[in-house]
């Protein structure tokens, strides 16, 4: 079931797999900040870097793209909306409106940014085990006051393992209902309820079983997982990301 989505963990031994999860998180926070206000040139740079790292993780590219096709539709939607609404001179006209050159550029830019952020997030999820995420969040939150960092970290770790499960359950439910002709029902409330109720029921029951299985194996929040240790390689990766961010920043402001 869970193996059907691109969002799960893929075992491997690439650069990203070996990187200290704390550094991965920090880098992801930094890059998703810069990516969202990058220009074309900087985006090209980021995409190249991201693509190289992703290829090295061993996640199969065609499958990844197939997985993201729904998301692709969304990006297309954003692109079209921008293209038509951004003003400027329309290139062609239908019924008085049309995509302008400016709008198309802008739409492409926004779509590209969104796509890249998703890919960055995916590469974290594909190469990091949930206990590593938990450990990283825990150690990063420790200095922040007023947050129960252990509990928060446990929950983030669990969130990581639930997301792929939920997505595949959602797809299964939707497919089963398509097969039974839900497309013929027009009432949107009916369709919402009919999708969400089985999905929630299934995921809550799964969560129940998972919790029982964890508890049966003596689960505690305080476990002896391997210690996180930052090696020279981690620092140089961080330095590389910072350098890239700086270059991207300069490029977007030229």
């Amino acid at each position, binding site marked *: *079931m*869970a*193996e059907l989505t691109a969002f*799960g*963990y*893929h*075992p491997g031994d690439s650069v990203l797999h070996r990187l200290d999860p704390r550094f991965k998180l920090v880098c992801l926070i930094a890059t998703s900040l810069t990516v969202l206000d990058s220009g074309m040139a900087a985006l090209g740079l980021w995409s190249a870097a991201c693509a190289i790292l992703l290829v090295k993780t061993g996640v199969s590219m065609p499958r990844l793209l197939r997985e993201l096709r729904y998301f692709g539709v969304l990006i297309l939607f954003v692109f079209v909306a921008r293209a038509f609404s951004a003003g400027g001179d329309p290139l062609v006209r239908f019924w008085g409106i049309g995509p302008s050159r400016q709008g198309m550029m802008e739409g492409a830019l926004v779509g590209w940014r969104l796509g890249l952020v998703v890919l960055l997030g995916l590469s974290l999820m594909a190469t990091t*085990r*949930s*206990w590593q995420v938990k450990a990283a969040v825990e150690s990063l939150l420790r200095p922040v006051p007023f947050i129960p960092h252990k509990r928060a970290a446990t929950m983030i770790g669990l969130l990581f*393992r639930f997301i792929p499960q939920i997505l595949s359950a959602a797809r299964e439910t939707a497919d089963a209902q398509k097969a039974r002709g839900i497309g013929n029902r027009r009432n949107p409330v009916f369709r919402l309820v009919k999708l969400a109720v089985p999905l929630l029921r299934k995921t809550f029951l*799964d969560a129940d*079983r*998972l919790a*029982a*299985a*964890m*508890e*049966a*194996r*003596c*689960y*505690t929040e*305080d*476990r*002896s*997982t*391997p210690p996180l240790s930052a090696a020279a390689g981690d620092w140089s990766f961080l330095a590389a990301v910072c350098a890239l961010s700086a270059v991207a920043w300069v490029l977007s402001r030229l």
Partner: protein
Amino acid sequence: MNILEADRLSHRFPDGSMGIHEIGLTLRKGSFTVLAGPNGSGKTTFLRHLNGLLMPTSGEVRIKGVPVREDPRRARRLVGMVFQDADSQIVGETVYDDAAFGPENLKLDRREIHRRVLAALDAVGMSGLAGQRPHLLSGGEKRRLAIAGILAMGSEVVILDEPFSNLDYPGVRQVLGAILDLHSRGRTILLSTHDLEKTIAHADRLLLMEKGRIVADGRPGAVLGQTERYGVRRPCAVRWGRAVESWLN
């Protein structure tokens, strides 16, 4: 020596219905017991009391003399459980991580964890799959992985809830082999099923459950005659008046 004792165990669900009723059971160390009963007879509910996943409304379970209620963590360490559903008991992202989950919770040191995990995976014949994603395994492999997880924790009693559901013939043989191997190493086995055919040849005791009560208890040969009265099919061989053969032969 009795390793596990349950005393007049009853459980009432929050909605008022009775899950199990006044169950008494003692398990001898190193025994192999099969618990049979139709769907909804309360097998799962009963088994979940034995490691403190459910607490009884009245009655008590003791593991090596210590009540579960006093120390549920100890009970869970000593009594390992393989669940009915193969998928939702996977807790790790790789086969290795999954087997290491229990020992990590026990806060053992890394070297000891590593040693135990390798030994456990080896014991169920899965050493070659350590780096795999567990969700990609076959049904039989998933069950064996669950058994390895318990082995690595060092449990002395192994409870298996319907370990053969959804398995094909090779799957059944693999899992049965792993269970018998555990038994031969001195583990106490308690296994629930509604299909006696696959296991009864190896069991030394058979319990029948119906509507939350234990209605028959004894050596398989003695109890097999009354199974169908309680909605459990007798193995074919017994119907033909022969001894049940092992599925491994």
